C-alpha cells in the first residue's frame, strides 16, 4: 500500500467530516479526522489497486485511525468506505462485486447497531459486528503472515545455492540385491516347467560332487599334468576323498579330464582335456598358488 500517494491535501473540501465528534479521547471530543485519511482523487486509481479487496480496504481505514479491530465505529467506517466506493464509481473504475457485497454488509450491521436491544441479552453474542470482526482479524493475520513470509530469507534473493562441477563421473557398478529364496523359487519353477516339457523326472547328483567337479577343473590345466593325489585333501576325511574321487570319475566320463598312468603302480597324472581350458583357468586368481605350481 502506497502511503506516499495517500498524502492529504486538506479537509476543507470535505466539510461533512466535521459535523460531529466521532470519538472521545481522554474525555475530549474528537472532531477532526486524521488528515491522512483522505486521498486525492488523482491518486485514487493507484491507491485502489493497492487493495487486495474489501477486507483490506476496511483494515486500512481502521488502522489509519489506530482503531481496534474489535471495537469498530461501524457508522463512521461505513461512511468512509462508501465514500471510496462512490469515488471509484465516479471515476468509472470497475468496482469488483466483492466491494459492493461488503458495502451491503456494512449497511446491514449499521442498521442493526441502531436497533435497541434488551439489556439482559448477552451482548457479545448479539454484537452485529462479530462476524465482520472475525473476518477482519482472520484476514489480517494472513496478511501479516504473507509479509512475514516475504521477510524470510529466501533462495535466489537472500541466499544462493552453491554448486561445483565434479570430476568425470565414473559410474560405479552397483548390483541388485538378491535373496537366496528368490533363486530357489526360480529354480523350483524351472523344475516344474522342465517336468512339464520333458515328461520325466529330473535327477540330481549330489551338489557336493558337482561343486567338486568345478573345483577340480579349476585345479587342472590342459598344458601340464597334475599329480592325481594333489586333487585330494586328506583333511577332508573319507567322505571328502570319496566326493573328489566321484567328481574325477564324472569328469572323465564327461571327457573333461584326462588321466595318465605310465605303468602300473606309477603315479597317476591328470590334465584337462582341450587347449582352451588353460586360458580360462589361468584367469582365475583364486587358484591356490602351491597347487598351480605343482606338476
Amino acid at each position, binding site marked *: 500500500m502506497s502511503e506516499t500517494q495517500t498524502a492529504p491535501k486538506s479537509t476543507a473540501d470535505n466539510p461533512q467530516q466535521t459535523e460531529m465528534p466521532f470519538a472521545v479521547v481522554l474525555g475530549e471530543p474528537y472532531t477532526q479526522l486524521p488528515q491522512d485519511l483522505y486521498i486525492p482523487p488523482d491518486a485514487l486509481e493507484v491507491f485502489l489497486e493497492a487493495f487486495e479487496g474489501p477486507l483490506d480496504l476496511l483494515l486500512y481505514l481502521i488502522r489509519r485511525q*489506530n482503531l481496534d479491530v474489535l471495537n469498530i465505529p461501524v*457508522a463512521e467506517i461505513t461512511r468512509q468506505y462508501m465514500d471510496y466506493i462512490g469515488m471509484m464509481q465516479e471515476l468509472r473504475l470497475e468496482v469488483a462485486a466483492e466491494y459492493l457485497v461488503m458495502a451491503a454488509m456494512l449497511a446491514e450491521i449499521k442498521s442493526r447497531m441502531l436497533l435497541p436491544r434488551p439489556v439482559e441479552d448477552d*451482548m457479545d453474542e448479539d454484537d452485529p459486528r462479530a462476524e465482520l470482526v472475525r473476518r477482519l482479524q482472520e484476514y489480517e*493475520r494472513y496478511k501479516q503472515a504473507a509479509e512475514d513470509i516475504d521477510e524470510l530469507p529466501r533462495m535466489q534473493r537472500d541466499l544462493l545455492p*552453491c554448486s561445483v562441477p565434479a570430476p568425470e563421473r565414473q559410474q560405479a557398478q552397483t548390483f541388485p540385491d538378491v535373496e537366496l529364496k528368490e533363486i530357489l523359487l526360480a529354480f523350483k519353477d524351472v523344475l516344474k516347467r522342465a517336468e512339464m516339457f520333458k515328461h520325466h523326472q529330473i535327477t540330481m547328483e549330489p551338489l557336493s560332487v558337482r561343486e567338486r567337479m568345478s573345483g577340480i577343473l579349476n585345479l587342472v590345466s590342459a598344458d601340464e599334468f597334475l599329480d592325481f593325489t594333489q586333487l585330494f585333501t586328506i583333511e577332508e576325511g573319507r567322505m571328502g576323498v570319496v566326493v573328489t574321487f566321484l567328481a574325477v570319475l564324472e569328469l572323465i566320463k564327461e571327457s573333461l579330464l584326462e588321466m595318465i598312468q605310465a605303468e602300473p603302480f606309477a603315479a597317476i597324472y591328470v590334465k584337462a582335456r582341450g587347449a582352451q581350458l588353460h586360458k580360462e583357468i589361468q584367469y582365475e586368481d583364486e587358484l591356490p598358488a602351491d597347487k598351480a605350481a605343482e606338476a
Partner: protein
Amino acid sequence: MSDIPVKNILEAALLAAGRPLTLEQMQGLFDLTEQPEKGALREALDELSSDYEVRGLELKEVASGWRIQVRKDMTQWVSRLWEERPAKYTRAFLETLAIIAYRQPITRGEIENIRGVSVSTNIMKSLQEREWVRVVGHRDVPGRPAMYGTTREFLDYFNLKSLDELPTLAELRDIDSINVELDLGVPGQFSADQEAADLDITAMPNDSDIVAHIPLAVEQDASGDTSQTLH
C-alpha cells in the same frame, strides 16, 4: 578412504550435488562397510558448519536435507553476477501462499473466503508451476474441489526445515475479549498482561493511542450499551 576426513567428503558431495542431501543419501556415498553412523555424519556436519563461520557460506538443514548456501550477507556482492533482480511477489500471491501454508489442506473457495476476494487462476497456476503448492486431495463436498498444500520445495526455498518454522501466526481475539479488557479498564495493565501474540495486534504505531482509547471504551461500556458507544 581412511585418511580423508568425512567432512571433506560431505562438503564435496553437497557442493557437487547442488541440492540438499539427507543423512541417508550422505551415508550412501560410502561403501557399505565404511558407512559412518548418522551421529558421525552429524558431527562432521557440525565441524563443517563451524568452518563456515569465518567464510561466506553456511550449512543449513532444510526440508529436503542439508545444503551449502551463500550467506545472506554476501548477497550484495554475489547477486551482481546476475543482471536480473530476483522476482518480487505480489501481495495477492504471497497472501494466497500464506493461507495455503498455514491452513493446508485448503480449497480455493476457502482461500477466497479468508481473503474476501476471488483468487486468480494465474496465481494458483504459478504457485503450482513453482512447485511450492500442489493438490493434496479433494474435499468430499459437491464438486469435489481440489485441496491444496505446500511442498518440500516451498520449505526449501524459504530456508525452512518444516512448517513449524513458519513465523507465528497472530492469535485471533474473540470479540468478548475486548469487553473483558474493558471491564478491567486499567490502561497500564492492558499492555502489561498481554500475551505476546495479542501484542502483535495491539502493537500499533502509537501506544498512546491505545491508551487513549481504553478510557473511551470503558466510559462507553459503563453506559451499559456497548453498541451506542461505537458511533
